[in-house]
């Protein structure tokens, strides 16, 4: 499916292929194992460079500029801090409690640093990205709003999610150009309601099928309850996540603009995303992980094929800014905690 209908529209194009990426990936893995994890910092750089460097818009590619040394340093500091924190937590639980509160307050800083690092280390067409979100705003978005959302029993989750997306996109810069996202709240609620309906339908269906299959009354049968739980998790919750993400991704991209009259476009489909994730998982598990590179390329290609940009003025007119330093601490933290703060490509 092509987004290129008007002549000022350009698709994202991913030119990487599984065969080539496999070689890079397996060397990354082997060197990482042989060096007991040290090379993994350089492996990360090669991974990002490969996927960025193969993503094109209008003949120009993205690039990633962090060095392995930078990332290794960040990771060592974060790992040392985690170990010290764990020791203190077990030895002096009371001091640990205060430290824990400190860590919670540190979280918005770490996540902003991670976004700044990722943005500054990424470029498109020789112009670097930047991130200008402040600690205060991040503290509201990542600490206060989640608490408020929990207090309303997550009925305000779409508001929280929209706030997070606004924070990450409105503070993103491309050279001197600014990203701007303007999303109607109703669209988020609609996505959440559709996802929730899916879960409820699956839960009801699973409960009825399994309960009727097992003659004993389900309340007394832990097996039936557990099977229902698994069914709801795998057929209900996980696909619901895809439904929500696919719907909101399209809304977010289609409401994002960049100074100069450029606008992003997305038309991913929840069913296709789910099918790709499900079949990828099966193939990767059955091949002991060896088909992971193929799976990753497949996802990158699908997302690129369904992402585009409507060009306003010329892509030649962006101006870069003075290079600023960035600490890799937040990036290392988000790697270890498995948080996703990369560019929303």
């Amino acid at each position: 499916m092509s987004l290129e209908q008007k002549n000022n529209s350009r698709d994202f194009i991913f030119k990487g292929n599984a065969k080539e990426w496999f070689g890079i990936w397996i060397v990354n893995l082997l060197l990482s194992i042989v060096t007991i994890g040290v090379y993994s910092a350089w492996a990360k750089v090669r991974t990002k460079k490969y996927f960025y460097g193969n993503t094109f818009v209008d003949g120009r590619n993205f690039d990633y500029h962090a060095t392995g040394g930078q990332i290794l340093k960040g990771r060592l500091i974060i790992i040392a801090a985690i170990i010290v924190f764990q020791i203190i937590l077990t030895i002096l639980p009371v001091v640990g409690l205060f430290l824990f509160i400190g860590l919670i307050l540190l979280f918005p800083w770490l996540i902003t640093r991670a976004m700044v690092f990722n943005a500054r280390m990424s470029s498109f067409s020789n112009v670097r990205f930047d991130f200008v979100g402040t600690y205060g705003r991040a503290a509201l978005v990542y600490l206060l709003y989640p608490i408020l959302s929990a207090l309303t029993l997550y009925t305000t989750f779409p508001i929280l999610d929209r706030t997070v997306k606004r924070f990450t996109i409105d503070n993103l810069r491309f050279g001197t150009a600014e990203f701007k996202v303007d999303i109607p709240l109703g669209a988020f609620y609609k996505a959440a309601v559709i996802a929730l309906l899916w879960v409820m339908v699956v839960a009801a269906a699973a409960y009825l099928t399994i309960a009727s299959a097992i003659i004993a009354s389900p309340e007394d049968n832990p097996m039936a309850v557990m099977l229902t739980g698994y069914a709801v998790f795998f057929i209900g919750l996980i696909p619901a996540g895809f439904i929500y993400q696919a719907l909101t991704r399209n809304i977010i991209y289609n409401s994002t603009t960049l100074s100069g009259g450029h606008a992003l476009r997305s038309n991913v489909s929840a069913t296709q995303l789910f099918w790709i994730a499900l079949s990828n998982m099966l193939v990767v598990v059955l091949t002991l992980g060896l088909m992971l590179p193929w799976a990753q390329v497949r996802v990158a290609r699908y997302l690129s094929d369904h992402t585009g940009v409507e060009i306003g003025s010329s892509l030649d007119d962006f101006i870069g800014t003075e290079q600023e330093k960035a600490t890799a601490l937040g990036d290392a933290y988000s790697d270890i905690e498995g948080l996703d703060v990369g560019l929303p490509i």
Partner: protein
Amino acid sequence: MTQAFSLQGHVYLAVSSRRMAARIEAAPYEGVIWVRVIAEDGQELARAPLADAKIDTALGRTARKLTFDDGTLFETQDHAGFEALDTGTRGARLYALERFGPHLIAFTAACLVAAFLLWRYGLDTIAALAVAATPQVVVEKIDTGTLQTIDFAMAEDSMLTNEEEARARSIYARVLAALPENERNTRDFELLFRAMPAVGPNAFALPGGTIVVTDELIREFPDADVIAGILGHEIGHVVEDHGLHRLYRSLGAYALIALLVGETGPMLEDILLEGNALLSLSYSRAQESAADEFGLTLSHRAGFDPIGLKIFFERLGAGIGDDMQWMSTHPNHSSRVEAIELYIRGLE
């Protein structure tokens, strides 16, 4: 490079996204090789000694890039031509390793073997090293800290009579005396009693050597052989450092997955974490079985009948369903009783 050479590509002007067709030329001048970027109209856009320009390591078929100090970027898809500018570097060797070819079969095999060894032995080795590196003071502090948490969350002061406690202590002293002296002296063994109605008849060991026994155990299982078997089991956990091993092992597995595998995408991530949790449960069950054997040997050596541990699990097992062993941190009671019977036969 001895002679002048030229390569077609594109240039991005310094601190700008402007892109235009250009060529790069390299030529020796007074013993130094210089590179120049020239636009199609013949205008020179950048010039520097080759040694001062930054060349990105080749990576698959992504464009080869050469960046000047001022931010001017030249890129080309002409990989073969570009190699003349970038020979014999570390990057070139890495690139050769990554290219698709028969050597990757050997690499793949090496990775599979390494991953298996890492999972089978590496994690244990890492955990053992970490345990050895943990100072005794820290381990004892873990005991103090954990005990505080237990006392706060789920335990009351013991309600045992002095006689009941004295009797349990004398059994404990006999079992501990059966432990080789060097193993007894390296740990700070201590027996504590707590009332824990929610936990029931049970006992647990903290890594530093603190062993906590519930009132419910002493009251419901007054048989000296039972108490001796359970104390032996808990001493086994302490002597073999099970608690710390498990802690380090799970931390190590988590860090390895996060750093080596990196981003796997949705769903796979869930599977990896679930799988890791299930594997660590099987590890915990293996520790329980090892502690059972340790306890049987120790109580037997101390002059108790090892049948005590069997009686305990048989009584506990009565009335509780035994399925779903793979979901539990402990082996189920019936398979435990069987293993104990087998081991007792070996002792006699």
